[in-house]
């Protein structure tokens, strides 16, 4: 296994783990479904990036990122959403 492939493997597994940790923090009765599906799309892009051959892995990763961004586009339609502002001095 080349160095780049080993680094990619580590990064992809770390990304999948980060997504699992976020999904673990979500609560079915509280969290909106779109937030789950957004992370699921990104996670599936990562696992496909891990197991598919190189060129299709790139396609899967790009698709996962694009779906993640598209599914949150409504929040960004009228400007930056709540929680992204800098804290202002009182």
């Amino acid at each position, binding site marked *: 296994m080349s160095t780049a492939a080993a680094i990619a493997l580590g990064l992809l597994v770390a990304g999948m783990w980060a*997504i*699992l*940790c976020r999904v*673990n923090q979500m609560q079915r009765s509280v969290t909106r479904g779109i937030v789950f599906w957004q992370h699921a799309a990104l996670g599936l892009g990562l696992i496909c990036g891990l197991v598919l051959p190189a060129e299709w892995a790139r396609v899967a990763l790009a698709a996962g990122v694009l779906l993640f961004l598209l599914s949150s586009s409504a929040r960004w339609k009228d400007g930056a959403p709540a929680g992204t502002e800098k804290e202002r001095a009182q």
Partner: protein
Amino acid sequence: MTPPEPDLSPLSVVVALLTLFVGPQLAPALGAYSLILIAWFGGVLIGVWRLPPAPRGMVAVFTVVTLIVTLGVTVPAADVLARHMPVLEAKGLLFPIAVLIPAVGHSWLDVAAWVWSLRRRFSAPKEGEQ
């Protein structure tokens, strides 16, 4: 003579993609396990979503246990189901079984208890029977 209909099952698509890169000898085996891994991760996401928020260690254990069970059980389970229900094809069952195992996750004990209660209900002698 009409040409045969193309097989568009997820496994066939993954195998066709892999054949382009790894050759026809390895592609079917790699294709099946690639598909199982992709389905497993989809199922793990659903399984963790269904769990109440838990410590990270528990999520890690859940992930590893479901990975081992999914890799070990999916292919034999698909074969057994296809043998008992000839309408189903083993290859087509790999994806749904590999999703289902981690997605049901912690509820497998409830499923087992429900199956056990059904079994007891049907095997118990009815009133008036000896």
